[in-house]
């Protein structure tokens, strides 16, 4: 034995030549001709069809929340009087420190000094403070609530308050006290048949 046989490299060559000759045959056999035909003849149909809508052209309005609020206010406050009364843009709107009377649909009217206005569209509310039997009572109302029949401005604050929230009026030093006399005077002046406040 003196090294590898001289015939071996020739054998390798033959195998590669055979592979080269087989290759086109093999490639041809891998193409699924029958399958391709069947695919074309019977197209695939999905069981559940998804409806595709045309794209929306854009938002109907630039501020839909504002539109919604306006629509809701139009229902709850058709005359727009309440909205105007509490509007920031109205020069004659009521301000913290004014005395208001709220007439309720079921219940007695409640009046007091306006401490706070919370402007939040349809959710706008305000806080009134009064003293009943020398006990401070505060009531929070929703401006557009159907439970409120009417809101009257009884008296304006003599000097415009320099704060938006007059919580300092809870302190005994700054407390307005009872508004009963002011309201009584107002009712006597405005309404001939007085709705007496208990």
């Amino acid at each position, binding site marked *: 034995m003196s090294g590898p046989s001289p015939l071996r490299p020739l054998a390798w060559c033959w195998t590669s030549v055979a592979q080269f000759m087989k290759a086109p045959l093999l490639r041809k056999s891998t193409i699924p001709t029958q399958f391709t035909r069947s695919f074309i003849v019977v197209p695939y149909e999905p069981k559940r069809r998804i409806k595709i809508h045309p794209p929306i052209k854009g938002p109907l309005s630039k501020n839909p929340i504002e539109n919604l609020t306006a629509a809701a206010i139009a229902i709850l406050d058709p005359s727009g009087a309440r909205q105007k009364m509490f509007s920031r843009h109205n020069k004659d709107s009521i301000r913290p420190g004014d005395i208001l009377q709220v007439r309720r649909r079921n219940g007695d009217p409640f009046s007091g000094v306006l401490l706070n206005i919370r402007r939040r569209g349809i959710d706008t509310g305000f806080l009134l403070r009064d003293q009943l039997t020398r*006990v401070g*009572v505060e009531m*929070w109302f929703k401006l557009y*609530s159907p439970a409120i029949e009417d809101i009257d401005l009884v008296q304006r604050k003599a000097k415009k308050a320099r704060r938006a929230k007059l919580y300092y009026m809870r302190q005994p030093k700054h407390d307005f006290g009872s508004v009963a006399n002011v309201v009584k005077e107002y009712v006597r002046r405005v309404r001939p048949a007085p709705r007496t406040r*208990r």
Partner: protein
Amino acid sequence: MFPSRVLGMVQLKSMLTCIDNSGAALVECVMVLKRKKPAGIGDKIVVVIQKQRSLGQDLSATAQAAVKVRRGDVCHAVVVRTKKKYSRPDGSYIRFDDNACVLVNKAGDPLGTRLSGVVGEELKRKNWSKILSLAPMNV
């Protein structure tokens, strides 16, 4: 439709003013009855009388007889005002400047014969009509 319980903040050690003429002026809450949470308007609590109403110079027999409780007595009471604001079914809120109560016996009848301040309307819902009828005003 609306919650049967009214939110309140009266709990152990809360000091309340007593607004009836039973003789108590200031009471301390020691227990809230039938409720795991702090008591609100219309809830029954157990109180200890901390301060008696001063009789002044008037020490007549009638005034003495009017005093039904003494300092240190343990008594049942009903909360009638809370400093904590609570909501009404119509969306409005109400709060008072103080916490106040009325002393009652175990049957639920008020010990005093007169009340001296405004009380919450929720008492009607809680079937405390006897207290409401004594009160000068309810809001």
